[in-house]
């Protein structure tokens, strides 16, 4: 059971009309790994993630989740979106509890768990606030709690911190690293920031430029854990990895630029 990959993509392609967005991608993500996917903008990172989530299905090929072929919504996954997805008419506590409430937990039990999470994300005393009353960083924390409170086996994140300022973003990354290392959750993290990808992950996937996006490289990140996100960026090994991956990614980014300008 433990040896089954959390996600296995088998020759998946995805076309939108006559445009082939993703062509013949195969990979496996072992359980409990933290994998980042990087690639030039518009290369289909989100499409790939949406297929793993079961929100869209591949035109060809198949995705397996813990050994089972994925049909419909991926029930073992939680998804953190790039944009705010909190329900504006629910309070902070209501939003955190939402997943538990949908799973039919008793009001008492889900409230108890939500209170614990509220404390954990440092928003104690904000339980009865509505999302519009919170800052962007606070809303992201609520989204993190909403996502992790259901104890998913797999967490999918689509550039969740791209809209945040540098400091808030840094704290969120620490929070995620902390959560991932303390649970048995597999994480697939989409980003365009290579530094972020290397610092957080066990493995980095590089996608090619669109259209007909392929998987052009997989780089295991052997940096020791637990990691300190401040110090790691001046680490020698980190910089070597960055150089290596950036060489490949750069080619794709430039290709993408040529396509846009020609």
């Amino acid at each position, binding site marked *: 059971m433990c040896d089954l990959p959390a996600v296995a993509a088998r020759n998946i392609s995805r076309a939108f009309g006559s445009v082939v967005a993703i062509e013949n991608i195969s990979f496996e993500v072992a359980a409990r790994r933290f994998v980042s996917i990087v690639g030039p903008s518009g290369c289909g990172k989100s499409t790939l993630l949406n297929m793993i989530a079961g929100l869209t299905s591949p035109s060809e090929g198949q995705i397996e989740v813990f050994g089972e072929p994925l049909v419909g919504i991926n029930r073992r*996954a939680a998804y953190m979106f790039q944009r705010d997805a909190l329900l504006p008419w629910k309070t902070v506590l209501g939003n955190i509890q939402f997943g538990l409430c949908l799973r039919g937990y008793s009001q008492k039990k889900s409230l108890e768990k939500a209170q614990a999470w509220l404390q954990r994300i440092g928003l104690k005393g904000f339980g009865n606030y509505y999302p519009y009353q919170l800052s962007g960083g606070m809303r992201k924390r609520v989204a993190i709690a909403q996502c992790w409170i259901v104890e998913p086996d797999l967490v999918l994140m689509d550039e969740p911190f791209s809209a945040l300022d540098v400091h808030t973003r840094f704290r969120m990354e620490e929070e995620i690293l902390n959560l991932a290392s303390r649970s048995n959750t597999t994480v697939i993290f989409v980003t365009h920031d290579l530094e972020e990808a290397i610092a957080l992950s066990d493995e980095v996937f590089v996608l090619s430029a669109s259209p007909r996006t392929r998987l052009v490289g997989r780089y295991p990140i052997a940096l020791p854990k637990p990691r300190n996100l401040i110090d790691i960026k001046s680490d020698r090994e980190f910089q070597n990895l960055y150089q290596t991956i950036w060489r490949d990614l750069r080619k794709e980014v430039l290709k993408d630029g040529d396509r846009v300008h020609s």
Partner: protein
Amino acid sequence: MTEYIRKKSTIVILQLLLASAVVGIWEYCSASNIVDPFFFSRPSAIMLRVGHWTATGFVWSHLLTTLLETILSFLIGSCLGAVLGFVLGTLPTAAALLDPYIRVGNALPRVVLAPIFLLWFGLGIWSKVALGVTVVFFIVFFNTFRGVREVDPLLIDNARMLGASSGQLARHVLIPSALTWIFSSLHISIGMAIVAVVVGEYLGASKGIGYLIAQAEGVFDTTGMFAGMAVLAFVVLLVGAAVGRLERRLLRWKPLQDSLAPNRFP
């Protein structure tokens, strides 16, 4: 906050000044025969009439009838509009099928329906309620429809990822979204209900503010007509304030949209 109260009270004082200026000019013009008091009456006479109506209790039963008709048409129209709006919002094919008929129905001037409703439902309150329903129904219908259709797809995806069934999706995402639209149209739908009901009473009734105005008109009693309008205006103001408070309570998860209010961070 004190800043806010000061600004707000300044506005209220200016509003009262504006009203008294208009009334003052009107009173002066009528009193000095610049305008004919027979056609324009006098504010003082109108106030006396309203005072007389309320003191003798004459106006209450008429007012009550108008309010009852308004509330009934609002409730019935809202329920019908919300249910049909929700159903068509979730069934695009049915919505496309019914689209031209709904447009035609909405384009129809309601006044022309009043005589038909009089024939069908008689002189009592139900012909007015029916007229009010045809107005409220379309407002609530269109708002519910939009609310269901224009939910951010991201919210739906998020709820589905968190494990929502289609029933739960309706309960936690679609209905609250539709309610937002319905609540924000409360002012319009209640206001329009009052208008429709009064028009209905005016065209044929045995009770109500519209009936009072029509009666006064029948005997060229302009003071009575204006008194009826004054009572109506007062009621509309009261209802508007009540609806405003209700809306604020129901939509408390939304940022406050009072242009005078400072940015609040409670």
